[in-house]
C-alpha cells in the first residue's frame, strides 16, 4: 500500500473547492487519501489513532483558520491536536506525524502544497514501527 498520509478535511469549507480544482482525468495520488468530515471539531481522536495504528505514516487535519469556522470547532481541534501530540510522543510516535493546517475556502493550491510538504516530511521519518506481539 502506497498511502502514507490520511488527510481529514471539512465538507463545508475547503473540500468542495478542492474537488472543483481537481482534474478528473488524472489518477488520484496514491500517497494520500482524503477523508471528508463535517467539521474539524467533530473529528474524534480515535479515528486518528486508528489511522496511525493501521498503516498511515501520518495524519493531517485541514481546519478552517481562526474565526472562519461557523461552529468554533477549529479551536477544539487545535487543543485536541496539541494534547494528542503529547500522547503520541509517549507511545514513541513522532508528534510531527500529526499536523493541523489552517486552510480556508478556495485555498486549494495552498492545501495541495501543504499535503505534498507533509508527505515529504513523512518520507524523512519513514513508516511507524510495526508492532509484533504474539
Amino acid at each position, binding site marked *: 500500500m502506497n498511502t502514507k498520509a490520511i488527510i481529514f478535511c471539512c465538507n463545508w469549507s475547503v473540500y468542495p473547492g478542492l474537488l472543483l480544482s481537481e482534474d478528473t482525468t488524472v489518477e488520484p495520488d496514491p500517497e494520500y487519501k482524503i477523508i471528508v468530515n463535517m467539521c474539524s471539531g467533530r473529528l474524534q*481522536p480515535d479515528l486518528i489513532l*486508528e489511522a496511525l495504528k493501521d498503516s498511515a505514516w501520518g495524519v493531517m487535519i485541514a481546519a478552517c483558520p481562526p474565526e472562519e469556522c461557523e461552529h*468554533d470547532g477549529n479551536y*477544539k481541534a487545535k487543543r485536541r491536536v*496539541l494534547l494528542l501530540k503529547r500522547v503520541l510522543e509517549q507511545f*514513541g510516535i513522532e508528534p510531527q506525524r500529526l499536523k493541523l493546517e489552517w486552510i480556508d475556502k478556495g485555498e486549494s493550491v495552498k492545501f495541495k502544497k501543504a499535503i505534498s510538504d507533509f508527505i515529504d516530511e513523512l518520507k524523512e521519518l519513514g513508516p511507524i514501527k510495526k508492532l509484533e506481539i504474539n
Partner: protein
Amino acid sequence: MPKPKVAFYWCASCGGCEEAIVDLNEDILKVVELVDIVFWPCAMDFKYSDVRKMKDNEITVAFINGAIRNDEQEKMVRLLREKAQLVIAFGSCSQLGGIPGLANFWDRETIFESSYGKNCPSVDNPKRIFPQTKSKVPEGELTLPAFHNTVRSLDQVIDVDYYIPGCAPPPYLTMKAIGVILSGELPEKGTVLAPEKTLCDECSRNDSKPEKISIKEIKRISEVIVDSKKCFLAEGVICMGPVTRSGCTEEGDGKCISANMPCRGCFGPPPEVKDVGGKMVSALASIVGLEGEENMSDEDAEKLINQIVDPAGYFYRFSLPTSLLRRKRMSNLVKGEK
C-alpha cells in the same frame, strides 16, 4: 446432580481481586453451597498437576484475574481455557491490562534495569545479576518463567466469554455474575457484566455542574481539596468519569467519587468507546480553555494543555494493552518476540 465446578486464578495482579472474592463475606458461604471450588491457589493448596489431571470442560467457570506478562501465566490460562466451559476475565488487569499494563510504556530491558540495574537507587548489584530463565546451582537447574516485553489482557491470549470490570470488582457484581451463570441463562458472549452508562451519567455531583464547563487551570488532586459536592472537572481536576463505565457501586455513584477522589477509570470504557485515551483527549481538550478560546493564542493554548502531566499514563492508566496503539514503539523490540 454434581455441583458446578469453579476455579479462580491470578496472573499479573496485586491480589486485590482475590480480596474481592473474600469480600463476598457471608455470601461466599452461599457460593460454596452451590458450587465446588476446584482450584484457588491463593486460598487453598492446589498444584498445576491437579488442573492437568482434569478432563476438558470439567470446570464450569474459571474466574481469571490479572494481566499476562510471563510464560507461566500464559501456559496456565491456556490450560484453564481447555479445562473450563466458561472463562471470565475478572477485574481491570484481566479485562484491559490494568496497572501492570502501564509497563507497555517500557520493555523488559528497561524494566529490569529499573528493578535490578543502575536505574534502581536502592539496589546494590555491582555484578549485575539479572533474573535468568535457567540457572545452574549445585543441586541442579533452577528455572523462572520468561518475562515478556509486552503485557497483554486475557483476551489477547485466550478466548474469553465474559468480563467483570473493576479494580477490584465490587462484590455485588461478582454475586450477580455467579447468579447469572448458575441460572444457565447466559448473556451474549463477550458481554461486560456491568451497567452500560458512563459514571458521569450516574454521578450525584451532576447537579453542581455548570451548563458549560471551561477549565482555566489544571489542578492535581494532591494540590487541592475539592468541595465534596462539586464536579471535579468543573474544578479543574481531571476525572475519568466521562469515559468510564458506571457500576462501581450498586447505588450508581462512584466509589472513588464518594471518597472525594476523581474517577481513575478502572471500570474501563462504556460499550460505544473504542479507545479510552482518544475519547478523553476529545472530552478534556474540548473544555480546557473553552471560555475565550477565540482569543487564546497558540502559545497560551499549548501552555494550558501542557499543564496536563503524563496524559497517556493518566488516560490509559487501566487500559494501555487494550488501547488502539497497545504499547510504546521501541527500537529494541524484536520481531516475533513477546
